[in-house]
């Protein structure tokens, strides 16, 4: 039912059952919040969204209050403004106040609020808590001193990723967010997805920075620094530049990095092509009932390109390990390509290569540090930059990507097919694998490939494709809660008509990854996906096998499964954790 309520002398139409906050925001009333997250149940923890309602004695939190008929609301009365300002001042009274030394300086929600509320002097002097930062994890750093206890990270970790690696410890003025027994994140069940960094309003959660490592390597004459750029990063940069500008983001990234001192800039897209090919090959093998050294033939095959998902399976679902695809993740495939294949071809010593990947993901930092991804004790990938760190590196070198001329990335790894773009968003990789499987098994005279992806980020998550006279079921899920729900459903219903499940741990896939720029909301996840879809339409090569860079890799059976070195290059070993 619709009715009208009055906000500051303006009548607005509202839906029965919606919260006051959603009605206000829809009508362009900007209400400050720290704890509110769209699509989550209200928590009412920060109380910044208070408004005054006529007839009610106290101020009410608009995020948790439903609209009522005949409501008369004031969003900017003296009382409301004063209350909000005091709240921000109280938060600041227990804050380190070191904005100039803070990684989130300039894009911190608390800083913005202090400015918006016109906080100009310190009114509350009190003893500040002394909490120490936690740099124990390979991917996510925590600084509880900067935490405002909004609970966004705790909720996303528990409700979306089902991991609960962190929770509120203790209570009252001693409350902080930490893992059990106040141990570091490295000893917790964290899957390194980085969604907590995405939702954190301040600098309480950050990436473990590799920027300085990269800068140090760039400064060394003896090191060849090779950058590899993931397609999702290109989508993100395109989004930042404005897609309509028609700028070739990849070429501008290459130009900027060349000016930074990179010896080569590669397009990581080719590794996505290899990953899709490998997944399709393993799927075909399992459909034929063969084990192939990469697994024991369990169906449905689950994708293993997302390191957070792999870690989740290792820690929480060891029973599903046999379902994981044996293919390495694109980053690690590319790591091997650079340090083994490329180094061999060019006659460069492995040690003199410093391989940097630029990824939309913080879990890749964890993945690169794993022992199974080293070669004779040396990491295949030396440093992983998130999109945030990538911009940091450029800013630190005085480079502005918007000002760059366009320079093509370097060969031999400068080509990718549409599949590489597809792998960036939820559902895309399933489609790419289906397409490749169709190419391998189907008779194009008899069958036509049909795979309709929904336009929205979430939505229908399975599809049946007739391939080679057989209905093959493909499914895709993003976020662990969707994955767990879906796999539980398959197990309960004892369904065997689904053969491939693509799992990405971040909502929307890599375009919504934990390493993407923060504070940009879900709208940007959608626009990055739109860019990926647009890019794949314009892609020169439609299928991974069309990519001219692929053929030399597979030539002479170098990467085929009967070659023992192929497993070392492409195969993954997953252990229970």
């Amino acid at each position, binding site marked *: 039912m619709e009715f009208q309520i009055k906000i500051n002398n303006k009548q607005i139409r509202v839906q029965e059952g919606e919260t006051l906050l959603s009605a206000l925001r829809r009508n362009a009333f900007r209400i400050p919040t720290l704890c509110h997250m769209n699509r989550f149940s209200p928590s009412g923890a920060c109380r910044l969204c208070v408004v005054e309602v006529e007839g009610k004695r106290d101020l009410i939190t608009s995020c948790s209050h439903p609209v009522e008929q005949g409501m008369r609301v004031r969003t900017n009365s003296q009382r409301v403004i004063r209350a909000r300002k005091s709240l921000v001042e109280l938060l600041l009274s227990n804050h380190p106040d070191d904005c100039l030394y803070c990684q989130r300086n300039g894009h911190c929600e608390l800083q913005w609020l202090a400015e918006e509320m016109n906080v100009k002097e310190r009114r509350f002097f009190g003893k500040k808590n002394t909490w120490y930062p936690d740099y124990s994890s390979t991917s996510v750093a925590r600084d509880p001193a900067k935490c405002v206890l909004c609970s966004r990270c705790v909720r996303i970790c528990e409700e979306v990723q089902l991991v*609960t690696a*962190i*929770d*509120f*410890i203790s*209570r009252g003025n001693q409350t902080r967010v930490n*893992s*059990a027994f106040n141990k570091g994140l490295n000893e*917790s*069940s964290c899957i390194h997805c980085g969604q907590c960094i995405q939702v954190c309003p301040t600098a309480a959660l950050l990436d473990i920075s590799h920027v300085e490592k990269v800068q140090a390597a760039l400064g060394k004459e003896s090191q060849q620094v090779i950058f590899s750029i993931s397609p999702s990063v290109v989508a993100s940069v395109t989004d930042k530049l404005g897609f309509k500008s028609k700028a070739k983001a990849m070429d501008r990234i290459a130009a900027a990095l060349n000016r930074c001192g990179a010896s080569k800039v590669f397009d990581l897209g080719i590794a996505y092509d290899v990953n899709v090919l490998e997944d399709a090959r393993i799927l075909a093998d399992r459909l034929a009932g063969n084990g192939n050294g990469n697994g024991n033939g369990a169906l449905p095959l689950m994708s293993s390109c997302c390191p957070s998902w792999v870690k989740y399976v290792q820690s929480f679902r060891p029973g599903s390990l046999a379902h994981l695809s044996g293919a390495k993740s694109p980053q690690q495939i590319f790591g091997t390509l650079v340090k083994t294949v490329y180094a061999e071809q060019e006659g460069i010593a492995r040690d003199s290569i410093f391989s940097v990947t630029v990824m939309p993901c913080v879990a890749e930092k964890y993945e690169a540090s794993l022992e199974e991804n080293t070669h004779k004790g040396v990491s295949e990938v030396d440093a992983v930059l998130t999109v945030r760190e990538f911009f940091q590196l450029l800013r630190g070198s005085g480079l502005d990507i918007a000002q760059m001329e366009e320079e093509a990335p370097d060969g031999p790894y400068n080509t990718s097919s549409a599949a590489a773009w597809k792998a960036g968003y939820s559902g895309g990789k399933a489609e790419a694998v289906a397409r490749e499987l169709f190419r391998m098994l189907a008779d194009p005279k008899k069958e036509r490939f049909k795979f309709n992806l929904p336009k929205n980020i979430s939505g229908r998550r399975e599809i049946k494709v007739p391939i080679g006279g057989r209905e093959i079921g493909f499914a895709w899920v993003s976020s662990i809660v969707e994955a767990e729900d879906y796999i539980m459903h398959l197990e309960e219903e004892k369904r065997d008509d689904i053969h491939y499940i693509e799992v990405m741990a971040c909502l929307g896939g890599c375009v919504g990854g934990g390493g993407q720029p923060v504070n940009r909301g879900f709208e940007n996840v959608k626009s990055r996906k739109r860019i990926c879809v647009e890019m794949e339409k314009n892609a020169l090569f439609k299928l991974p096998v069309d990519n001219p860079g692929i053929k030399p890799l597979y030539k002479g059976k170098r990467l085929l499964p009967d070659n023992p070195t192929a497993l070392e290059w492409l195969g993954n070993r997953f252990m229970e954790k």
Partner: protein
Amino acid sequence: MDVGHILKKFPNRRREDLIPLLQRIQDENGFLSEEIIHTVGDYLNISINKIYGVATFYDNFRFGPLGKYHFRLCHGTACHVAGSTTLLKELEKLLQITSGETDKSGLFSLEVVSCIGACGLAPLIEVNEMYYTNLTPDALKDLVRLFREKENAVI
């Protein structure tokens, strides 16, 4: 410690069983160890980080063993007015521990509690369910010395 027999009393494995379960375990074991929290987490399918968060929210749960002599210092209003803060400082000096801790020898542990309900006898302290009332710092010194001597005599 084996907590299997306590777990059996909660066959439904519901989330809301967590606090009663932890209470029973603490009643028997005296405190919640890391191992116990892991066992309970596996049993109820709750993350250990969540359990630790819940347990630290309540003052009642402890994560280390109590001392042989467990001092519970009353910090209610009446005791506060009668000088329990001075007693706390004195006790911290005597035992070399702060509230919530157990000393290295395992002999003494200290806890500050809200009103025990004997305000007429303030300030007071409870040690192993014995009440010592109308205390002064000097009386406290004697009390601790008494416990120490008793322990030395046993050895």
